[in-house]
């Protein structure tokens, strides 16, 4: 993605790091990665072909077979399913002549399903040739396909997703959407010095917004303490957690403050190179980001001696993911940037010590960087005026599902679920999934819990990573859980047994529940196996994959009672006879 100027700057990368961009080029040009392409790449990087194929087959936007002149990805996240995924799929199939998962006979259209594309506030949505199309309905789909058939390009006819910033704290207390002037935060660096920056972050108690909430100053301080060079700053813009789209809106509305946060990090830890790892689903945002990077260069805010600070050289380039939720996990992200399969590393070293290319690396979320530059710009004192003591500041929340006003809500920490539901016009809320499928489901009975980083014990307050999906009382919980389970089964990197096999096994159990075959024993096993995955999986994906299931079973008694048959004296198990002989009955003369 990077222009020549940057390439010269980035002298440290081994060739292999460019593998993903090379694959992207082939995918876009030939609509698949051909055998010949694999052969050529293998020769170029001195690898065996199977190694390239391993990378290609890991990412779901790379295809080994032609994926159509126009490649269509339908979002199949739970919100899309509830907003009419099935109808949209049917219409696409009818209009294009392609069945889901295939291309039409002429190879013009390829139709695929993909997990959340970060447009939950515009469902049903799809990506066509990696451009967004939102709020789809049968008529609109028909129109789109006709236009494509007439020779228009997806770029010409795509939608520009609205930012839907629905709420910011009253009386100009917004942090993220305050007026922004390029360079304002950077201008503070020279006076604050490294220690001053860390001090500001420490006082504002900023913790990582990628979901783990690790104190940002601590991460930076540790990275700073290593003498190894060069160091790297990586902005994690993989935003894969279904129902989350706050990073999308930040990147589109506030790209400057994100970049400034990265520059502040580079200054503090002594890093020379920065990368934004943008998820493939947000390819349509790449141009905007590159323009912003250029604008920083033009103002001397990137490159050599940034803002006149002698010896402060730093540049940023953009890297594109290619469809893999697990690449949001920081060590998987590093592997992916090195041109490999996005498999999380074993946790010997943290990236701050050995990250990209085994060199010290800071990985932070988009929102974290944006918060940093705002804290520097406004000052920690001002920041501390928001939120509640012990949990200061504001948080971006992406709301979707059954509510009147889906979109981005910048809330001050300390708001209650009930207040948030009021703001967004929640319709008969019943089951709320906080922080995405890997987060926790809460029942409307818990609506007086505060959203904060305090009192997390005993389920008093609740943290929110950014996704807030509302489901009304008509929605089927098992259906929701099946959707999550399918997501994890598909998105597991496959490296470790409990997650690779476990998610598959858990799904079989849920199928039993869905088919009315489950008994109390299944309930017990679901919980126990969920716990096994949590304890033994390598990374957060496997560790959290069964959270929602286990917690729903505990919290939604009223829903689940009666769905698990009592086993006390049933010596004959439930068995679906008809289903079991259905295949054979086809041979009845």
């Amino acid at each position, binding site marked *: 993605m990077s222009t020549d100027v940057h390439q010269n700057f980035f002298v440290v990368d081994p060739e292999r790091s460019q593998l993903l961009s090379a694959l992207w080029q082939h995918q876009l040009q030939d609509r698949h990665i051909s055998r010949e392409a694999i052969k050529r790449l293998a020769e170029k990087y001195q690898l065996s072909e199977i190694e390239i194929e391993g990378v290609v087959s890991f990412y779901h936007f790379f295809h080994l077979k032609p994926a159509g002149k126009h490649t269509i990805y339908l979002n199949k996240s739970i919100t899309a399913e509830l907003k009419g995924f099935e109808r949209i799929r049917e219409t696409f199939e009818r209009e294009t002549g392609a069945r889901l998962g295939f291309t039409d006979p002429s190879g013009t259209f390829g139709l695929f399903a993909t997990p959340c594309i970060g447009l939950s506030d515009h469902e049903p949505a799809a990506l066509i040739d990696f451009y967004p199309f939102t709020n789809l309905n049968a008529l609109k789909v028909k129109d789109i396909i006709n236009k494509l058939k007439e020779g228009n390009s997806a770029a010409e006819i795509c939608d520009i997703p609205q930012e839907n910033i629905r709420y910011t704290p009253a009386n100009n207390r917004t942090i993220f959407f305050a007026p922004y002037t390029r360079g304002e935060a950077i201008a503070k660096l020279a006076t604050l010095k490294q220690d001053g920056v860390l001090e500001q972050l420490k006082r504002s108690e900023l913790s990582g917004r990628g979901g783990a909430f690790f104190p940002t100053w601590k991460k930076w301080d540790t990275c700073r303490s290593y003498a190894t060079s060069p160091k790297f700053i990586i902005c994690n813009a993989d935003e894969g957690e279904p129902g989350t789209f706050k990073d999308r809106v930040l990147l589109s509305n506030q790209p400057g403050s994100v970049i400034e946060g990265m520059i502040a990090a580079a200054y503090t830890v002594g890093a020379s190179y920065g990368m934004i790892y943008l998820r493939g689903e947000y390819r349509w945002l790449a141009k905007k980001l590159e323009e912003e990077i250029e604008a920083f260069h033009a103002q001397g805010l990137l490159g050599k001696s940034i803002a006149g600070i002698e010896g402060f050289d730093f540049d940023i380039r953009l890297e594109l993911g290619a469809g893999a939720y697990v690449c949001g996990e920081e060590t998987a992200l590093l592997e992916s940037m090195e041109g490999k399969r996005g498999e999380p590393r074993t946790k010997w070293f943290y990236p701050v010590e050995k990250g990209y290319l085994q060199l010290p690396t800071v990985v932070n979320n988009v929102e974290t960087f944006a918060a940093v530059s705002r804290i520097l710009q406004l000052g920690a004192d001002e920041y501390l005026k928001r939120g509640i003591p012990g949990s200061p500041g504001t948080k971006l929340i992406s709301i979707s599902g059954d509510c009147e006003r889906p979109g981005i809500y910048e809330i001050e920490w300390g708001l209650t679920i009930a207040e948030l539901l009021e703001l967004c016009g929640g319709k008969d809320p019943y089951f709320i999934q906080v922080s995405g499928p890997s987060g926790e489901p809460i029942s409307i009975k818990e609506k007086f819990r505060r959203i904060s980083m305090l009192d997390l014990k005993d389920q008093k307050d609740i943290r929110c990573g950014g996704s807030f999906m509302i489901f009304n009382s008509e929605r089927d919980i098992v259906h929701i859980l099946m959707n999550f389970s399918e997501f994890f089964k598909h998105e597991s990197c496959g490296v470790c047994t409990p997650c690779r096999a476990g998610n598959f096994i858990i799904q079989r159990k849920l199928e039993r529940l869905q088919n009315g075959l489950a008994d109390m024993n299944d309930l017990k096993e679901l919980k126990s196996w969920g716990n096994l995955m949590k304890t033994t999986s390598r990374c957060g994906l496997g560790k959290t994959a069964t959270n929602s299931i286990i917690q729903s079973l505990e919290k939604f008694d009223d829903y689940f009672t009666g769905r698990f048959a009592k086993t006390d004296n049933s010596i004959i198990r439930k068995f679906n*006879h008809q289903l079991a002989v259905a295949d054979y009955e086809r041979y009845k003369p």
Partner: protein
Amino acid sequence: MATCSFWIDGKKYEAEEGTNLIDAAKENGVFIPSLCYFRHIDPPLGTCRTCTCKINGRNDPACTAYIHEGLQVEVNTPELVDMRKALVEMMFSEGNHFCPACEKSGNCNLQHMGYELGISVTRFPHLFKDHLIDYQPKRMIMEHNRCIKCKRCIEEVLTTDEKRVFMSLNRGNETMIGIDYEQEARLTDEQAVNAMNICPTGAIIVRGKSMAKPFGERAFDMVSAQKQFKHNILEKPNKGNFEKKTIATVSLAGCFGCHMSMLDIDEEIMDIAELVSFNKSPLTDIKNFTQRCHLGIVEGGCCNTENIETLKKFREMCDILVVMGECAVWGGLPAMRNTIPLGECLEEAYLNCVTSEQGENTVPYHEDLPKILDRIYSCNEIVKVDYMIPGCPPTATHIWKVVKSLLWGEDYSLLYSEFKYD
């Protein structure tokens, strides 16, 4: 390097600083199960998770931990023991392991680990995913049904010019280990055999090289970290409170091998006849139950509707229900068809096979014929099973010991050697 003290389950041990925890534990006589761990691979793979312990308070794999002063490890708490066992069980339900038909049997780390951890049945549903058997490589056969994706081959098997031969493909539950045909052909014979040997399962087979060792000399024939139990031969129960019991037996979707094995008790069958009488059973040729029985023994799983009815009848008529043999326990050999849709199986058998008549166009179907199920079901999926005797087949002593201990409540002691069927 300095010698450090570390603690396992509250006991103090010593080892060189930086030693891998698995090795350090082994040197000190503590067994930590492991499958993917392979001494030379650095950093360790950490893929199988069967070595999960509590290390300084966190659940982590032992193979990715190193000895340092004061390291605290919990290895044998009941939860950890059960979790490690569960992980190995998971591998058996994820792959399709038919040990009686496997070249690696007796030399297989996975099978060995199954024995060591005392697995008799997996608690998980078998996934019966259809995996490829790849005959295309020049020298090797890749049996994907048996691969546990440990990644040893990826890291260890390189051509002389350092190119990888194996690599993971796809992801999630579709993950498999691909082999590069071109690079495979460039391996030396020695390198190829090494690939087969480092594979902890029978997934990599080198043509013509597999059955190198006779029974008794295979890698795991005599090795066990488990204590050998004392041998107890079949003794008659104490005559004092003796009461003759009735038993029923049946073979469903099995091969009668388990029944033959029951007869393997030789002349001791006479003793057994004194202790028990048989009701419905192929041994007596009594077709229908004539009375309620103390114990029912079932061989084989369910492949058709008649099997299901019979099994339910057994459950109703017997106080205790025992299933014997792998087929009854989880499906066994007949379950080889479970990865293939029923239609394909039937059409191959009746319409398209070499011995079918020209122009044959019907698959047998008649009201009087039992209906064939979409897959083999284990007995436990249809009725509640009280006890399972694994083995293919279990030995006579094993079966009768179970019977005896169940009927007369005697202590059951199982020999490691009795339990090893490979």
